[in-house]
């Protein structure tokens, strides 16, 4: 049957394609179009948030600089953190990558609730406008964590309300996406795809969806609490009337710790996809990686107060959270060791996607080690709220999430666009970014331990040399992103056409044409075994068998 005939046949569930421009590109119900919308919008916010960071680094090139006033500097890091977590990181790994790949990898035609998917996306630009418009009124200055009482005090006008509203909106979006993805994974897998035959990116997306659904609801409530305190004077955090500032810290971090796992788990998933493809052998420890993701998901709800070790916790609370934080390090380590072992006796192709994965493994390991240093309550006394923490978070969020995002972009770009990216530019991008990244963030560990606190527009002159070095490295780091932008532009205009499977991979998205047709699969595939058994026949029935299983590069 032809596709148009299939469109008439209800059992195939192929609906007619959208016909108007609005339905195709603006209010699309197609998860792949929505993914591109997320990529573009979050990408734009990445540029804004990155520029804010560079402005900060200019101010910090020397002590007592007057490039930015203190107030503007404080606004810069507050919006940088807010945007990077909520308008860039989470939307990219869930809304963009999750949407683009997960439904296809499970052999579905779309997610469970496409209309809700579209709604989730459109909440992102609304949230971004709300958050960035707070700049017009003097943006919030107390960091992305906005601890009261100080967050209720700085010249505010509407700015804290706008911030609360913006983050609330993106929180609702994230909750809906989580719900959507989890129902999709549970209910819409192709026949034969048991949980242990799912690609690891789907495992990662599933656990992330669970976290998004449960934890983000808590964020919404917390923000509502801050909002009603600010606007209506409801005394939740108001010490003078029986409120408790530490209460905010508890409810905020109960969400925000799972949030960092929302940020990293999909990147873990991307790593688990890229490695087998570029070493052409099964992932080592599939079950360990899958189950450890679930374990990390559950444990992530039990460690939040390790952000609060100096906040006057009871001793038993400090012990409890210290121990659980150390526990969560173990499944993370298992993954890293499994990924490294997958390279052993592989047929390694050092293409850009794999380079970014190697960069990820290199930097994220260091981030994990400094995380253990932070887990110890007494060691944390020196490290907390200093540049040591700034270094740690950037090693895991930039070295982890961002490198993972680039790995995924280079990997799935041909699938998304039908064109290849330039491999030479990719290598330049990787090496400059990897080196500049380390030169920027490694020295921060040092000045942090020596006594440089966070959120300062100036510092003790004894740290001047290091800060200058860090700032200059950060400019190189920012510039390296331009290489990717140039690469993307050239690919769009004159990139080499990609076939369905330029990398010779085995997961379902590579079994259909590039770019992917709106209906994904002509016939829903039947899955016979797991996707990483290189050397064995493809484990699918109902798939056109004449697809090249050989990498063409």
């Amino acid at each position, binding site marked *: 049957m032809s596709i148009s005939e299939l469109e008439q046949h209800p059992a195939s569930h192929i609906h007619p394609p959208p016909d108007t421009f609005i339905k195709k590109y603006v209010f699309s119900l197609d998860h792949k179009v929505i993914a591109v919308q997320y990529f573009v919008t979050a990408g734009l916010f990445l540029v804004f948030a990155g520029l804010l960071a560079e402005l900060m680094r200019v101010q910090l090139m020397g002590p007592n600089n007057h490039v930015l006033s203190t107030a503007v500097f404080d606004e810069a890091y507050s919006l940088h953190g807010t945007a990077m977590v909520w308008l860039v990181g989470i939307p990219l790994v869930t809304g963009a990558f999750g949407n683009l790949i997960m439904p296809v990898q499970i052999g579905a035609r*779309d997610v469970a*609730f496409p209309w809700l998917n579209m709604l989730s996306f459109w909440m992102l630009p609304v949230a971004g406008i709300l958050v960035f418009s707070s700049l017009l009124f003097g943006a919030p200055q107390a960091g992305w964590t906005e601890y009261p009482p100080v967050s209720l005090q700085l010249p505010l006008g509407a700015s804290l309300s706008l911030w609360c509203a913006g983050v609330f909106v993106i929180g609702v979006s994230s909750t809906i996406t989580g719900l959507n993805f989890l129902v999709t994974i549970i209910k819409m897998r192709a026949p034969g795809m048991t949980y242990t035959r799912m690609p690891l990116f789907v495992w990662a997306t599933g656990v992330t969806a669970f976290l998004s659904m449960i934890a983000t609801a*808590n964020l919404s409530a917390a923000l509502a609490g801050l909002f009603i305190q600010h606007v209506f004077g409801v005394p939740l955090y108001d010490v003078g009337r029986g409120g408790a500032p530490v209460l905010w810290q508890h409810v905020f971090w109960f969400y925000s710790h799972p949030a960092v796992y929302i940020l990293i788990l999909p990147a873990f998933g991307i790593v688990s996809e890229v490695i087998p493809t570029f070493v052409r052998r099964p992932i080592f420890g599939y079950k360990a990686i899958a189950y450890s993701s679930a374990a990390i998901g559950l444990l992530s709800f039990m460690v939040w107060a390790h952000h609060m070790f100096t906040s006057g916790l009871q001793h038993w609370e400090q012990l409890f959270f210290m121990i659980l934080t150390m526990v969560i390090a173990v499944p993370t380590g298992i993954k890293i060791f499994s990924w490294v072992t997958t390279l052993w006796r592989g047929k390694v192709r050092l293409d850009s996607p794999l380079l970014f994965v190697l960069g990820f493994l290199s930097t994220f390991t260091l981030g994990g080690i400094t995380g253990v240093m932070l887990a110890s309550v007494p060691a944390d006394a020196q490290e907390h709220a200093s540049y040591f923490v700034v270094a740690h978070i950037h090693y895991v969020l930039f070295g982890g999430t961002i490198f993972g995002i680039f790995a995924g972009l280079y990997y799935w770009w041909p699938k998304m666009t039908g064109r290849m990216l330039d491999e030479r530019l990719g290598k330049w991008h990787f090496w400059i970014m990897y080196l500049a990244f380390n030169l920027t963030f490694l020295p921060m560990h040092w000045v942090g331990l020596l006594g440089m606190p966070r959120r300062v527009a100036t510092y003790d002159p004894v740290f001047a040399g290091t800060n200058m070095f860090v700032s200059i490295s950060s400019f190189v780091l920012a510039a390296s992103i331009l290489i990717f932008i140039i690469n993307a532009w050239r690919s769009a205009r004159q990139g080499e056409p990609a076939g369905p499977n330029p990398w010779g991979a085995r997961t379902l998205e590579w079994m259909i044409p590039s770019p992917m047709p709106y209906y994904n699969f002509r016939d829903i595939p039947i899955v016979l075994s797991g996707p990483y058994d290189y050397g064995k026949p493809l484990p699918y029935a109902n798939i056109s068998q004449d697809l090249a299983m050989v990498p063409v590069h």
Partner: protein
Amino acid sequence: MATHVTTVSDPEYQEVQSQRLLGFLFFLISDCVIFGDFIFSYLYLRNAAPVWPPVGIERPYLYLAAVNSVVLFGSGATMHYAMEGIRRARLRQFVSFTVLTIILGSMFLGGQAYEYTHLRDTWAGSTFGASFFTLTGLHGFHVFIGVVFLIVVLLQTLRGTYTPQRHFGLTAATLYWHFVDVIWVALFFLFYIY
């Protein structure tokens, strides 16, 4: 998937129905988390306070709330019988019990409004007010949405949208209504008994 296809066979409808049910259950779970956050805040502030209720604040009256609770739980029972009606194709049973549920739900809201206007404490007046009015207000808002939801599905039923086999909208509305009941059990205990 859109419901534009009118000849969808039963196994496929079952598939869609099970997805929607799971999605709706997840939504209710995430809603529980929202209440959980405010309940945590209430218990934290209460624990940190030297005396509870704070000086000068009275506890709300138990008996009014107890009567109101009976009304609300009763409406859960009536909604259960309403669903029995739709499952057995007894439209009149469904309509009458749903109307009864709507009335009882509105009575609950009326009771809340009466209680609110007769409490001296205000939302911003103390940490007790902060906790009590936020939680019961959020709950009352959910009851209000529930009443609207019930009115909408009642009208849809009268227009013939649902059958004894296909009535996901009614299942969702009923689940939501029971959810509102369960939350009230927790709040009643936390504010009037504990």
